[in-house]
Structures are given as structure tokens and as C-alpha cells.
């Protein structure tokens, strides 16, 4: 990770996000995503993971949120004032938490909506559709059924497949494990890994399931109440005592009384 953010695919520099002009959610978050990486954004509920992703994809504006300070650059270009449509056109796409499929559209129609911004012709889209079915054979079986009636796992696959149809360079994946059985979570992350390796898609993923996320990610950031409190290579984070204790549910001295747990408030680290 280059400290200055130069050369990174995506660079978030000390951003602050305010919802509805009053609620301060992110208090100076900085992070870098290198091309070809799988970067995990970890933290508890309300830490600001989703908000960070939405600030990048700019879905924030539709929720009356606003980036009030800091900058976001993608390939050296400022993107914090771009519309989601422009961003998707540049290859940055978000897969939202909770799947968000188009319930009344069929699985295949869902996938095709992902290609809305593309202008490279029907044949190319069709080829990519086949590719998505290659990664998710289950979707091919369900192609004709309404997405609302498919299982949670299939919906998550549909959502990821839909994003793939836009030919993304960077996928912002929000909580892919939500509400899925452990086996399916593993399956989804396995596909993330394949996409990363074979399609060259970079991932920035927000996860509460720290164990799985750190196993598949190359680098990780830990957020707490709107601040980055810790970051490092995934393997290093997984060995960190604090991370083990607070996020992986392991501690050196066996079970501990809650009273003895030290309060964990490390100061934000300035990356810039």
C-alpha cells in the first residue's frame, strides 16, 4: 500500500459524510485500493462500512447524504461529484447490502439491466451473459423465474452477476454474507476470488463476517464509529491480538469476563 495513494486504483482521502445535514457518520475515513486487490472493510453495525461504499459509488446523494470533506479519486480522477451512471460507465459499481434484486423481473432480465450503460452491442452483452451463467450455473437454471421468488443465495448471485454485466473494474460489495448459510457464504466468496483472479475485477467489500473476509481479502481496514482504527495486510490483521479478541471471538487466555475487556479506542491513523 503506497501511503500517499498515488498509483492506487481507488483512493479515499479523509472523507466526512453527513446525512440530512445533521448526522455525522464518517469522521475522516481514508483508504486505498490497489488494482487487482480484494480489500475488506470490517467493523460492527453502524461503523460506517456501508456509508463508505455509498460515498464511493455516490448512491449517498439519493439518501440525503453528502460528502462534505475530503476527496475520492479513481485512477487519479476525482469522482466524488459524479453520478452513479457516470461511475458505472467508468467501471465502478456497487452491489448493495440485502441483494436488492428487481423482484418482478426474471433473473435474466435482472442480469440484463446491469448492461444498461453499455453501448458495445447486443452480441457482447450476450457473451457476457453466458460468462455470468458460467460462474453461476444455478442462475441459468432459474433464468426464467421471477427474482423475488428465488432463494437468498440465488438473489445474491443475481446481484453480483448483474454488476458483472456492466463490465466493472471495481466492485463495491456490501455484506455479501448477509442472511446466508455458512456454506453459501463460502461459495460466494470463492466466486469473488475467481472473479478477482480470472476477470481482473478489484473488490472492496464490507463485511461483518471478519473470519471469512480476512481469509479471502488481501488487505483490510477496520472501522469503528466512522473512523479507521486499524489497517494492514489481511494475514497480519488476522494475527493481531485486538482483532482476534474483538472481531474473531478468540482470546489468548480462554474465556474472559466482560469487565476485563479493555476499552478499545485507538486514535485514527492518518494515511495521507
Amino acid at each position, binding site marked *: 500500500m503506497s501511503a500517499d495513494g498515488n498509483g492506487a486504483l481507488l483512493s479515499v482521502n479523509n472523507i466526512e459524510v453527513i446525512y440530512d445535514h445533521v448526522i455525522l457518520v464518517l469522521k475522516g475515513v481514508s483508504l486505498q485500493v490497489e488494482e487487482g486487490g480484494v480489500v475488506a472493510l470490517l467493523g460492527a453495525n453502524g461503523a460506517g462500512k456501508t456509508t463508505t461504499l455509498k460515498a464511493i*459509488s455516490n448512491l449517498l446523494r439519493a439518501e440525503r447524504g453528502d460528502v462534505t470533506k475530503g476527496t475520492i479519486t479513481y485512477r487519479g480522477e476525482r469522482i466524488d461529484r459524479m453520478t452513479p451512471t457516470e461511475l458505472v460507465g467508468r467501471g465502478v*459499481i456497487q452491489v448493495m447490502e440485502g441483494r436488492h434484486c428487481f423482484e418482478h423481473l426474471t433473473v435474466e432480465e435482472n442480469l440484463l439491466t446491469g448492461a444498461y450503460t453499455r453501448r458495445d452491442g447486443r452480441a457482447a452483452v450476450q457473451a457476457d451473459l453466458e460468462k455470468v451463467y458460467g460462474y453461476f450455473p444455478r442462475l441459468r437454471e432459474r433464468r426464467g423465474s421471477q427474482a423475488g421468488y428465488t432463494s437468498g443465495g440465488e438473489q445474491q448471485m443475481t446481484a453480483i452477476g448483474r454488476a458483472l454485466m456492466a463490465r466493472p473494474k471495481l466492485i463495491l460489495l456490501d455484506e455479501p454474507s448477509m442472511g446466508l448459510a455458512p456454506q453459501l457464504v463460502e461459495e460466494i466468496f470463492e466466486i469473488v476470488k475467481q472473479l478477482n483472479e480470472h476477470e481482473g475485477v478489484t473488490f472492496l467489500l464490507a463485511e461483518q463476517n471478519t473470519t471469512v473476509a480476512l481469509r479471502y481479502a488481501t488487505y483490510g481496514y477496520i472501522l469503528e464509529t466512522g473512523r479507521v482504527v486499524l489497517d494492514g495486510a489481511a494475514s497480519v490483521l488476522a494475527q493481531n491480538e485486538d482483532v482476534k479478541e474483538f472481531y474473531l471471538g478468540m482470546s489468548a487466555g480462554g474465556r474472559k469476563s466482560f469487565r476485563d475487556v479493555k476499552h478499545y479506542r485507538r486514535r485514527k491513523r492518518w494515511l495521507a
Partner: protein
Amino acid sequence: MEMLRALTYGPLVEMWEYPIFLAEVALNGLLTGVMYSLVALGFVLIFKASGVFNFAQGVMVLFSALSLVGLMEHGVPVWAALVLTVVIMVVLAMVIERVMLRPLVNQDPIILFMSTIGLTFFLEGFGETIWGSNVKRLDVGIPDAPLDIGGVLVSTFDLWAAAIGATMVVVLAIFFQKTPIGRALRAVADDHQAALSVGIPLRTIWVVVWSVAGMVALVAGIMWGSKSGVQFSLSLIALKALPVLILGGFTSVPGAIIGGLIIGVGEKVAEVYWGPAVGGAIENWFAYVLALLFLLFRPQGLFGERIIERV
């Protein structure tokens, strides 16, 4: 006894004895139904694509008809006036998107609904300021002569209306089901946020959908206007479109059509056969009572989208 007979089976006997007359009444009702359907169609389009119940649809019918008549009165030939009116409706859609929908993005549906009520008042006043408020005659050259089909008298105008209505439904169905932009419209209707996340530009979609609704309004305006003159009361047919929507389902294009036909036929038949027994005016309330029954027993309407619940 006589009263009871007139209220219950009397009319049925009459129908049986004079089938030609029944056919005429029913046909008349069907063709009125087409007109209701046209208005309801505009509602469905906007509701489908933006979840907004557009109270101003009725006034858009009036406004488009007023614009058309106004242009024709200034000596613009029919075809040019039609093109210009379409342009006016598209511009209107753009303005609505810019000043009404964009600032209210992500607000509650009720707030958007209220803003369409505001739009209703604005368009009423604006239309009358520009084009005047007296009743105007609209004649776009659709022939109107009685036609004898197997002993049943039909107006050719009504047949034209039915044909145009049917064409529009087919075109819209293809547009919604088969084209990428139609697919995007349905996607937006399902989930704004998700549509935004895959890069569908909501603003463009809104302009498209309001433009299409404007054109549907124009067709409805031409039909109603040619029949009963272009006047303020034209906007009130929107009220008749409400029960049509409840019957057919708010999100279904075929529903709007069938709902319109059922109400058209139903109210005409009820008026002619049962009207005398209750002192007439059934036509005025029939649709609403029917709608009430539907709300009680089948709230999503005949063809409305089922609310998907996974268990």
C-alpha cells in the same frame, strides 16, 4: 311486486328477449370503456415506473387537448398541431422532472402524490391562461357515422377509438417487455436504489415515462375532446379512471384495459336495464361501488402485481 321484479330478474328477461338491443348497449359500453382505459393507462405508466400516483393525469388529458385545439385555432394544420402537442408534452415532462421530481427524490410516496395535486392546479390554471376557458370543438377528422353491423348500430368514431386504443396497448406492451429502456423502467419501478446502483439514470427514465404518459393523455384527450368538446370537465374523467385502476390493478397495462371495459359495459348495462327501477343515475356510482367491492375482496385488482412474500 312490480318493483321487486324490475330490480331483480325483470331486466334479465328483457335482455333475453331483445338480444340486439343488449348487444348495442354492451357495445356502446365497451367503447366508452376504451376511453376510460386510455386515461387509466396514463396512471399505470407513471405508477409502474416511479411508484407515484399521478393525480394530474386527468388534467394532462385536458391540457394536451387544449394545446391541440389552441394550435389548430391559430391555423396550424392538424398533423403539425399533433406533432407540436407531442413536443409540448415532452417539454412538460422535462420541466416536471426538473422542478418537481428531482428535488423530491427519495421522499415518501405521499409527498410526491401531494405534489401531483399541486401540478393539477398549476396545469389547470396555466392551460386556461394560455388557451382560454371556453368550450372548444375538436375535430381532427376522424369520421363519425353510424355503421350497421348485423343489425347492431355502431359509430365509426367509436370503432376508431377502439382501434387506436388497442394499437397503443400493443405498442406499450412491446415497449415495456422487449426493449432495454422498457426493462429499465420496470427495474426502476421495482427498486429505485438498485436501479441507480447499476447505473440506470433515474432522471432520463422519469422524463421518458412522463413523456409517454403525456402522449397517452393526448390520445385520450383527442378521443374525449372530439366526443364531448374540450372543456374543463375533461379533467374530471380522471375520477372515472380511479375505479378502473382498482379493478385492473395499479401496475398492469392489460388490467387498465380490461378494467376500463368492464366498467364501461357494466355501467351502461346497469343504467339501461336497472336504471328505471331505482330512478336512474346508476352510471354515476356504479364504477365506485364495483371498486369498493374489489377493494374488499381483491385489493391488488384483477391483474395487479402480487406482493411477493418469501417464506
